[in-house]
């Protein structure tokens, strides 16, 4: 049966064409859109034209390469666009593995390049039309010098075009490159581009123009991008303290904390006080689930609290309150089915990871807007939230280890999220279950991608 979380339109191929001068945050917005869509099981991929230009052998061109008067160089850049576009076509043509993706939602490719002239944009538009892709332009227009300076700094540090170059020289060259673009740049215009589907973000989202948006998925994307904030921010996450059920190796339930769990709750107060500073501490809000163990974990924290049903642990349905051994014994088929596809497996009368992701979406939207939030929740829910911020694929996210008694700090930056973990040094059982076994224990392989400790910090 066709199941869908967010849309009615069938198998659309949407191309998001980024527009804007260099250092206006296009890559940042592209990354965020991709992360959001993938997390919601919408297939999405970024095609960066610069990447294909480098493939053509122009790995570290200086600003003169971006001279718009020079026809030859123009052709090379045109060639790079074609390469990027062809890869995109190939990607769209790949057969879809339905088991992991929402077939009905369509797919989204993001063409990350300046696309700064009307001529260039109509080339792209024509290419898309031929293939029957639905286009949507997303323009980042900005004249706030602080923001631009910051973006220049970030680009110079992270762009392969400038690896190994002295910062001052790279910065100067990059600024010259921007100047070259500025000479020919044509912004999206309500009159000249009235027929295009576009959203134009002026100075982040101080002013916004939304034009001819056609599909539900596009509207979702627009809502998402107008809520994005540029400044880096922190989010703190923790599992509840060790619970009585954890000790008994039972899953689910609504038990109280163990003695050690309570110790963690007490210590969390000082850990939070030491870790979170300044403005954040003043405005901090603690979000918990509605289950006893998260509330007991939050009980000593002197901040306003909010209970969310959406933060409750994945519902194990019939298996709630059982140990993995018991599940393996009583429901061997279910046990195996879950190991085979943990993301999709829905407990009898309960939930799958996908179900959890759908119910977490309002929380994610709130988190994009809010600052100063500490979330105390459960293993599966944290895996989902963490997967969103860290771009962890669905095959991996249900297998990540997120130990008890550890405060996780996420710092969201334009080019990725930086993770810091603060261990409380209070012993707790491990609740991690490896694939194919019903016994619980710490993971042995420190290089395993399922162990997030070693995945930090992440760079996009």
């Amino acid at each position, binding site marked *: 049966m066709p199941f869908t979380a967010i849309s009615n339109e069938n198998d659309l191929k949407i191309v998001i064409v980024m527009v804007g001068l260099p250092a206006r945050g296009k890559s940042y917005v592209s990354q965020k859109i991709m992360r959001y869509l993938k997390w919601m099981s919408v297939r999405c991929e970024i095609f960066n034209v610069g990447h294909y230009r480098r493939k053509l052998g122009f790995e570290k061109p200086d600003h003169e390469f971006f001279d718009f008067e020079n026809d030859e160089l123009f052709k090379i850049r045109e060639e790079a666009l074609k390469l990027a576009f062809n890869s995109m076509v190939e990607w769209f043509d790949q057969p879809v593995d339905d088991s992991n993706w929402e077939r009905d939602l369509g797919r989204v490719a993001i063409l990350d390049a300046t696309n700064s002239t009307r001529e260039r944009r109509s080339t792209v538009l024509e290419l898309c039309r031929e293939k029957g892709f639905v286009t949507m332009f997303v323009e980042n227009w900005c004249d706030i010098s602080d923001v631009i300076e910051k973006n220049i700094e970030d680009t110079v540090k992270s762009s392969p075009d400038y690896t190994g170059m002295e910062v001052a020289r790279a910065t100067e060259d990059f600024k010259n490159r921007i100047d070259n673009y500025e000479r020919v740049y044509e912004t999206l215009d309500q009159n000249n581009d009235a027929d295009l589907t576009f959203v134009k973000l002026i100075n982040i989202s101080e002013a916004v123009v939304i034009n001819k948006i056609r599909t539900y998925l596009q*509207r979702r994307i627009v809502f998402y991008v107008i809520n994005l904030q540029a400044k880096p921010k922190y989010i703190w996450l923790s599992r509840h303290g060790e619970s009585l059920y954890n000790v008994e190796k039972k899953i689910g339930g609504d038990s109280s904390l163990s003695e050690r769990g309570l110790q963690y709750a007490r210590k969390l107060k000082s850990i939070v006080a030491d870790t979170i500073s300044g403005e954040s501490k003043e405005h901090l809000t603690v979000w918990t689930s509605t289950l006893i163990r998260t509330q007991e974990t939050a009980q000593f924290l002197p901040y306003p609290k909010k209970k969310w049903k959406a933060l409750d642990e994945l519902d194990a349905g019939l298996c709630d309150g059982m140990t993995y051994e018991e599940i393996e014994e009583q429901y061997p088929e279910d046990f195996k089915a879950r190991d085979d596809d943990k993301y999709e497996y829905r407990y009898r009368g309960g939930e799958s990871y996908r179900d959890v992701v759908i119910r977490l979406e309002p929380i994610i939207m709130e988190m994009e807007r809010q600052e100063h939030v500490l979330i105390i929740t459960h293993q599966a829910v944290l895996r989902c939230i963490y997967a969103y911020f860290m771009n962890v694929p669905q095959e991996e996210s249900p297998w990540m280890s997120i130990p008890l008694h550890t405060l996780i700090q996420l710092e969201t930056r334009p080019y990725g999220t930086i993770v810091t973990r603060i261990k409380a040094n209070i012993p707790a059982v491990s609740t991690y279950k490896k694939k194919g076994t019903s016994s619980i224990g710490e993971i042995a392989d420190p290089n395993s991608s399922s162990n997030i400790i070693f995945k930090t910090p992440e760079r996009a």
Partner: protein
Amino acid sequence: MESELSDEVSRASSSQGNHMARTQKRWDDIPSELATPADERDVERFGTDSVHQPVDPRYYMSPGQLYSTDSGSLFHAGKILIALVGLPATSKTLLAVAITRYTRWLGVRTKSFHVSEYRNKTEDGVDSSCSSTGLEFERKCVHLAVDDMKKFFQESRGQIATYDALNIQKKDRQELVRIFRDQDVKVLFIESIMTDQGLIDDNIQVALNSKKYINWDKQRAIDDYTTKLSVNESVYEQMTPEENLVYLKFVNFGEKIVINDNQYGYLVNKIVFFLMNLKSKKSRVYLARCGTSNSDKYIDDELLNEEGIAYSKKITDIIINRIRDRRGCTEGEFDPKKVMVWAGPRKRTYDTGMFFQQRGVFVVGRSQLKQLHPGAIADLTEEQVKKRYPKEYHDSLKDLYHFRFPRAESYHDLAVRMESLLMELEHTDKDVVIIAHESVLRVLYGYLLACTVPDVPKLEFTRGEITEVTFGPFCNTVERIPVPLDHK
């Protein structure tokens, strides 16, 4: 030239509910959470749209609200006056009411103020557009509306007022900003511009069907209305950034949206998203229960039994015939593409749509339509709940909407997870048949008819009826279509 607020009527047909008569607070002496015992259902109250009811400051929470604050204001947005701007026949009333419905549902204390209502209430039959007494009268109506809005902000802890008037001249807008600045109320203008002749014609048609033109000669009514339009057009000043106001331009019902100086943050973004999804539509929503299964247990995901299959067949016929009659088409002409079925994810619920599928209608399972999770009280009778969870049972009666039994969802949790679905419902111009559990239908109905928190859990949906909701610019209307029961 004087600002001229001409007679703008974009309300729908006269068959709507008697909304202006319901100005009394209903539960004056009863604590809100204990408003009405479940067995004394007030059919009239549940059957009409409450979007124009006064905001009762004692309802500390509304159906979709995520949190509450001491001040009663949400989203760190402060108080906002949302003033519509635009010529007659540009859907301003619809926009004002829709924003009111949605923000109320989010938990914001919102009320709409329609200058046309003041006109109707105060005096009938004054021709306002041409004579000087008419102009005087118009100004009086505007003053009354502005005074009521001030009171709403000051005395009723209102957070958003939507103000449905023309506001087509710069000085009208400056005046509003000036008045409300002193009240610490920010003003967001939403300017509705229509250049699409089809949309304009639709709106004019609605206006010509209004109360004012009953018994008028058709041509005379058209002339009268056209005169009004052109008088207003000649003095209309569209909004520009030079006016230094915070505004949102809404062109051809959402084809283009321009946000200028977006400083009110998340709440306004939510309204923008809502407006992107909003449509002026003639389609309807049909709410139906799923068919029965044998043991009717929550814990088993059962298939339909024979009776359930017969029921599925029956509701399919009733709804399709209904849609066909409405559209005036004959047996062969039914277009299944203009209808879709959204069903809850349980087997028997999804399967209730199978006969629609046979008729070529697209049936889709929506995980958001999953029924309220009953948690520990799954499959227990009320008596058993009373016995096993006496304290919880007692507490639940105090606030049926927000109470969670152990491990269960509350109605509120259900509403929060259904928001994205509501957006799609607002957007589609197809008829939507929703087959779901009663708890889900209650929440959907609660949104469509602006029900209050104490009301939602008490709404009743049986297999003996299909509920048809019709969208109207001023209010939504409901009809219950009987499903004849078989007597075996």
